[in-house]
């Protein structure tokens, strides 16, 4: 058992445990904090896979920016467990069935793929380093990259239009 293996298992337990806590917490603010912990654990996995850029961007964008917005909304609406209305019993049932089907489809799709046959290779490969990633993005995939930036721009313009008074 090397340090890398120990770290892998630690991060895995942390990620799954805090993901479960996101669902089971009664308090929405606690859920958000557990979700942040999940993102950190996943970023740790990225670092083990030698994808430092992805790891840090995951922290900046998801744990840093998006979760702050979640917290904003929850804090301002002052949600707490008492104010959540009782849900319809059938709604829960439908949720379980649709979630289960999604899980089934995902497992079926991943079962025979190449990825599942290989062990995860840790601390190897350098495609995740920022230099190589930048070269790939701006040489091989420059068109999709630019098009997705236009998508972001249109989302920003939309937000500004909605946020404008009168």
């Amino acid at each position: 058992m090397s340090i890398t293996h120990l770290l892998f298992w630690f991060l895995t337990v942390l990620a799954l445990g805090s993901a479960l806590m996101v669902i089971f917490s009664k308090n929405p603010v606690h859920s958000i904090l557990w979700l942040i912990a999940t993102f950190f654990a996943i970023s740790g996995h990225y670092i083990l896979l030698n994808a430092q850029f992805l790891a840090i961007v995951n922290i900046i964008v998801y744990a840093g920016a998006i979760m702050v917005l979640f917290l904003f909304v929850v804090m301002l609406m002052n949600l707490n467990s008492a104010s959540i209305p009782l849900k319809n019993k059938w709604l829960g049932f439908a949720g379980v069935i649709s979630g289960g089907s999604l899980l089934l489809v995902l497992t079926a799709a991943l079962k025979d793929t190449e990825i599942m046959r290989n062990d995860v290779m840790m601390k190897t490969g350098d495609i995740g380093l920022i230099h190589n990633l930048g070269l790939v993005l701006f040489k091989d995939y420059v068109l999709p990259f630019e098009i997705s930036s236009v998508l972001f721009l249109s989302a920003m313009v939309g937000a500004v239009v909605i946020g404008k008074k009168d």
Partner: protein
Amino acid sequence: MDWEFILEKLLLITVVVTVSLVVAMYATYIERKFAGFIQDRYGPDRAGPFGILQPLADGLKLFFKEEVIPSHSNKLLFVLGPCLAMLTAMMTSAVIPWSSPIEIGGRTVSLQIADINIGILYVFGVVSMGVYGMMIGGWASNNKFSLMAALRGASQAISYELAMGLSLIAVLMLSGSLSLRVITEQQVTGLWNIVYQPLGFLIFFVCALAECNRAPFDLPEAESELNFGYHQEYSSMKLGFFLFAEYINMFISCALIATLYLGGYDMPFVNEANLSGSSAAIVGAVALFSKTFFLILVFMWIRWTLPRFRYDQLMNLGWKSLIPLALANMLITGAVILWTMKG
């Protein structure tokens, strides 16, 4: 794994943390003395000669105060808030190169805790985490004023992070690397980045003021509107942690500005290559620390000179002035780099 390496890093972490704490402690004293100087009064002068024991006395007082946890607060998060504030304040110091490497007994010891190739992005990640201490603390206090202050602080921080990032991109385009060590070494051999990036330096400086919640950007603790701000319900050392984290933030961000724009550990008019390893390291550390202290003094000077902004003025400055300016700065830098590469 080699044990000497781990020992060396542990020692370095201890030294950096201790130095940051001591500097932050004495920054409170210097600030009060400086405020006294500006307002034509003495400042603290009772504890010890010239009042230099004042920070110790303040710390002791905070330790001995009664600790109050409001009965309707969320206790776990109430304690977590100041801890997070302190943790995120200390974490940035890991990537700052404090001086050039020294040699001890045939080993080259780097005076930087971690030279990661995404150094600047790491700083950004930690800065974006910084709002959580404030937000969680403010929310868990279960007090309207604290909550409003925390939300103000968080929106201020995320607004100014944008302009900060955009002004940094220009530096990255110049240096072609995200590692703070590489950026510093380029400035040691060439000119300081402030020569190429005067506007970027100004934008970054203003944003750093806003990120540290320093006046004129101290909206989260505007006493006249919010009683005391996000740490209103805190007492004893938990309050001390919040206040202390602010001074650590100030020290670390001044060190970061010095590293990015003012040459880091480069002593002007001295050719480091002529010095031996350890004396170059000492000269470098002295250079970095004097630049940092100069910037801290400028921070304080601004605080005691300018009045506080109104909230809408703050948002207008961030979104309508600094971000377009930073974008223009980035475009011009890119164009000039492209132009010189062709010529």
